[in-house]
């Protein structure tokens, strides 16, 4: 097992810089998830850690050893790819054993190791099958098996679940998490799916345009997003963001949004963005009080079973709010939405950074 240290890491493709000098320390045994939209540099960073992409500047150390110039096979890592990359011309057993290509073990020892890994992943009855005879989830398990068999210092996962259907994805998510709890090996996992990031990670690294925006535990990012992008990216459904005016006076401010002015205990710039998660913006009962109250008209109702979300035209846009699962408001009806001050996140309208 080993930690990873990334220092001032830069990647350029010709004149285009795609990773802009990022720094990150990953602890030994930590499960770190890189998350961000397509083209944010998360996969490129992972591939640089793997040694599949050249580094233009900066250093990557694995287990305290700088690996910039080392071949992938010399880095003691294992990688699971988005398309599984299990060899179609080999059986499951041969695929898993391929992870031991450079191990120097004899045939019997390899077989024993393959059987152990297959047992852990529930692949024992499938060992002689070809990949074409496996389901998507089974293929992904084989890919994980090939990575596991080598007992590497670091596991790298490059969007490994994105080709699976929703149900299988949830199941594999659980399996990967249990695997990490069992093996305790450092894992770096890349995804564009914030649900995967939230459910799997010890720490999430939010990336955008080749920069790291925020690093933190899932709930830390959820509760205290550093900027509007992270606020909207983490959490489902997406956070509502509303522009508002603030008047600062003697170290305090008054926010002007909604039915009544809202007192804020700190000085704020004049233009702010107010963020509120749909779970914290509720449809109010008649006469119910709240710190922030917005009036609007219900445009769409989305019953989800245990809860119902309503899209409400209010505050100059379409806001998503939660409503009682039973008896939600009807489409077209006038409603009042309310949120507690503690549920509001404030951002500077210019920089979009948290205030």
């Amino acid at each position: 097992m080993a930690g990873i240290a990334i220092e001032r890491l830069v990647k350029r493709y010709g004149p285009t810089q795609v990773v802009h000098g990022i720094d990150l320390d990953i602890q030994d045994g930590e499960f770190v998830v890189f998350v961000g939209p397509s083209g944010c540099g998360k996969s490129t960073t992972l591939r640089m850690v793997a040694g599949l992409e050249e580094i233009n500047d900066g250093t990557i150390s694995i287990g305290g050893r700088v690996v910039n110039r080392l071949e992938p096979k010399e880095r003691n890592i294992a990688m699971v790819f988005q398309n599984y990359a299990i060899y179609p011309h080999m059986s499951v057993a041969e695929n898993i054993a391929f992870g031991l290509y450079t191990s120097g073990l004899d045939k019997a020892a390899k077989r024993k190791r393959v059987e152990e890994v297959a047992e852990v992943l529930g692949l024992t009855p499938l060992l002689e099958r070809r990949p074409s005879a496996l389901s998507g989830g089974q293929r992904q398990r084989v890919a994980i098996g090939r990575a596991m068999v080598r007992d590497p210092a670091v596991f790298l996962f490059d969007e490994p679940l994105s080709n699976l259907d929703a149900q299988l994805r949830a199941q594999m998510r659980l399996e990967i998490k249990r695997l990490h709890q069992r093996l305790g090996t450092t894992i770096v996992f890349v995804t564009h799916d914030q649900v995967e990031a939230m459910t799997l990670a010890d720490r999430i690294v939010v990336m955008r345009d080749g920069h790291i925006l925020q690093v933190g535990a899932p709930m830390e990012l959820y509760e205290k997003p550093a900027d509007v992008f992270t606020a909207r990216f983490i959490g489902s459904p997406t956070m509502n963001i509303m522009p508002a005016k603030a008047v600062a006076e003697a170290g305090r401010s008054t926010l002007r949004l909604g039915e009544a002015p809202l007192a804020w205990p700190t000085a704020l710039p004049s233009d702010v963005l107010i963020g509120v998660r749909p779970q914290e913006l509720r449809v109010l009962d008649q006469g119910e009080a709240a710190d922030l109250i917005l009036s609007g008209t219900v445009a769409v109702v989305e019953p989800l079973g245990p809860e119902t979300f309503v899209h409400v035209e209010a505050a100059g846009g379409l806001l998503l709010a939660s409503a009682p699962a039973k008896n939600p408001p009807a489409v077209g009806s006038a409603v009042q939405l309310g949120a507690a001050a503690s549920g509001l996140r404030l951002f500077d309208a210019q920089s979009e950074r948290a205030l």
Partner: protein
Amino acid sequence: MSAIASPVSGRIEPGRILTWLLLFGGGLLMVTPLAFMFATSLKDSSEIYDLAFFPAHPTLENYVTVLSDGRFLRWFANSFGIATAVTLSNVFFDSLVGYTLAKFQFRGRYLVFVAILSTLMIPTEMLVIPWYVMAKNFGWLDSYWGIMFPGMMTAFGTFLMKQFFETVPNDFLEAARVDGLNEFAIFWRIALPLVTPALSALAIFTFLSNWTAFIWPLIVTTSKELYTLPVGLTSYAVEAQVQWELIMTGAALATLPTLTVFLLLQRYIVRGVVLAGLKG
């Protein structure tokens, strides 16, 4: 009937009948000379110019004559050996170059590819003289190597393999790199098995074209013991007399390996032709 009946109405569509007739006509056109060749090989020399399709008195005499002629077996072995060696060489080198062009980024890659591709525009007839001069200068005239060297690697094969290797996802190669394979092992153990259909098509076409090659082996060889089968068969046609029954028997025997290859590898050939977008 079901093949040419409309699945909806059950009626036979005129378009389908036309297709079926055209295919039947085309098939007949292909099979008739082959059948005539086999029929002629069973004829006595006195029947050759009767032009009857079937022999009046079928005999295997011609097969006995040809097979007991030591030269025929030698030519057969020459053709087989040469076609096999050239095929193996093509399968290896065309794949290696195709793989390099498809999967590695290096300066001048496009130029190399265009240079290889441009040789496809030059007809064989124009290449024969430079080949001959080259063979003469290197002392390869009248040798097996002289027959084989122009075909040991082909632009077509390289192009075909490059196109196929481009369809192999890079993830496979990168996974192998992470697993610790060196670049040749990645090519040999991972990439090559993934393009088996293209490889089969290349092998089959290369073998067949070398098995039937005539012009170059005729030019480069003078010793009869080095003749390939198609060249050797011309020995049965001498000025005074053309022994059609023996030529047809030799030709019939010459088709046996190709027919065997076809029957054994039919699946791969059809798939290879479809995949390669070739017209056969």
